[in-house]
């Protein structure tokens, strides 16, 4: 087993604050799948999430058309979120690297339990930010004190008052 990965809160905050559109590789139309949970949550937080999955290509998932490959996604996306087994993640990373200038991809994110150190090194060498073995939904919730609502240890200590929008 390799060393557990650590990412600073600042690094993760920077990614989640900068990204607008996310291509989610391995998105599922079934509502009990983890990818569906993550997609729905990220949509609620204002992200555009574009599903990518050859087995669901052409289907509507949460109001978005699912595409077979990253190359078939129309328009730009900042981040690729990979819901695939670790041994298949590298393939998606290379697909993203081939498209990075065309699509303005800046971040590769591999989900909880997904890790490919060699693919991460290739992406970082190409100038992309990489997160592995984390879930953007959980990290967003943790950094915005929502994970704490469920009794989870966020690791965050702060006496600053957060700014909230009151409509």
């Amino acid at each position: 087993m390799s060393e557990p990965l650590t990412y600073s809160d600042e690094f993760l905050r920077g990614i989640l604050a900068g990204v607008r559109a996310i291509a989610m590789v391995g998105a599922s139309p079934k509502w009990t799948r983890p990818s569906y949970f993550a997609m729905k949550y990220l949509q609620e937080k204002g992200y555009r999430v574009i599903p990518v999955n050859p087995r669901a290509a052409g289907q509507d998932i949460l109001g978005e058309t699912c595409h077979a490959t990253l190359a078939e996604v129309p328009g730009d996306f900042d981040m690729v979120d990979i819901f695939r087994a670790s041994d298949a993640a590298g393939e998606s990373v290379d697909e993203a690297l081939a498209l990075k200038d065309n699509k303005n991809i800046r971040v590769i994110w591999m989900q909880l339990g997904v890790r490919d150190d060699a693919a991460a090194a290739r992406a970082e060498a190409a100038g992309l930010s990489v997160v592995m073995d984390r879930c953007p939904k959980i990290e967003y919730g943790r950094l915005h004190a929502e994970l704490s609502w469920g009794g989870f240890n966020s690791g965050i200590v702060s006496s600053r008052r957060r700014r909230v929008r009151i409509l």
Partner: protein
Amino acid sequence: MSKDRKEGFGFETRMIHAGSQPEPVTGARQTPIHQNTSYVFHDTDHAASLFNLQTFGFIYSRLTNPTVAVLEERIASLEGGRGATACASGHAAQIMALFPLMDPGDDFIASNRLYGGSITQFGKTFKKFDWRCTFADVDETENVRRALTPKTKAIFVESLANPGGVVSDLESLSAIAREAGIPLIVDNTMATPYLCPAFQYGADLIVHSTTKFLSGNGTSTGGCVVDSGTFDWAANDKFPSLSAPEPAYHGLRFAESFGDMAYTLHSHAVALRDLGATMAPMNAFQTLLGIETLSLRMERHCANALAVARFLENHELVAWVSYAGLESSPYRDLAKKYLPKGAGSVFTFGVKGGYESGVKTVEACELFSHLANIGDTRSLILHPASTTHRQLTEEQRAAAGAGPDVVRLSIGLETLDDITSDLDQALRRAAS
């Protein structure tokens, strides 16, 4: 300001801050008491997301409450766990801890030195659920290995046993649990996370009666289950509540969908939903106030207890003292290893003259309160054989360290000289 989780903030900082950021709408710095049952949905889609566990938020205070959640995160942080579930009492916490693990016909192994109330709950009441408890003398870890069956789902011990001076060898017990593919559950009530970081010694789940040292002032009953987040519930087929499709959530598998958050989410979404043993927000608030001073209180509790134990050990009317902090204790080495900051403040001693002298000593105290609690700022005294351990058989009482001559003390934070003087006058009056 935030640090990497690995680096982390110090224990005392987390006692005061973990889980409690300023309330963003009003700026209130102290944790508000959300004396409230239900939470408004933005729309039906938001409600559906909440009910499907797809988003974080509050539905109904039987499941989660903002004040209780602060307490849960604080205890999870102090124990170094992934998440925690607060509930109505320590006894509720024991049911809650086992609920995701046990099916009817399953068994678990528990120390025969547990607090008497736990022995009654495990041995008698759990039979109604067809949960079977095998009690074992866990000082001989081989006894635990021998008691394992294919249906054993957990090993349950206290890090420091109530009433008196017994320390569990957590690392050896953890090795047996690991081999068997089951979690080690540690009741850390008497030690608190300040004295014993039980997850570091191999515990997988920790339970608390927060009524004791965590709240600290004898104001509020409560319990808590903390998950380390490191046990793989899907590694074998022993824990279908967490690894198999959950019918009430349309076939969702908790372990797959929520990873290291599965156990704590299940505890809220299924166990609290259906067992309903929720902690009240006011109790959570009082317990949070207590935890803010935990380290300071535990240091003084331990210092006073050690001094009182030494005083009693040298007292002509005392037959024996069972405190793991004394050189004479057979548990001294285990205490040095697992409780290096102190052996807690609850212990037992025997009065010369047996049962009658013990009862008289308890009744002759002026400063000590004669009551059935521990972990208060006040010094407390009790005769376990006639109270907390009354429901047990004579053999069970002897095994639990609650024989006829035993007096239990919970040493408080009063002036040390006043504590020893009260015991001295009570012992003398009992002997006269």
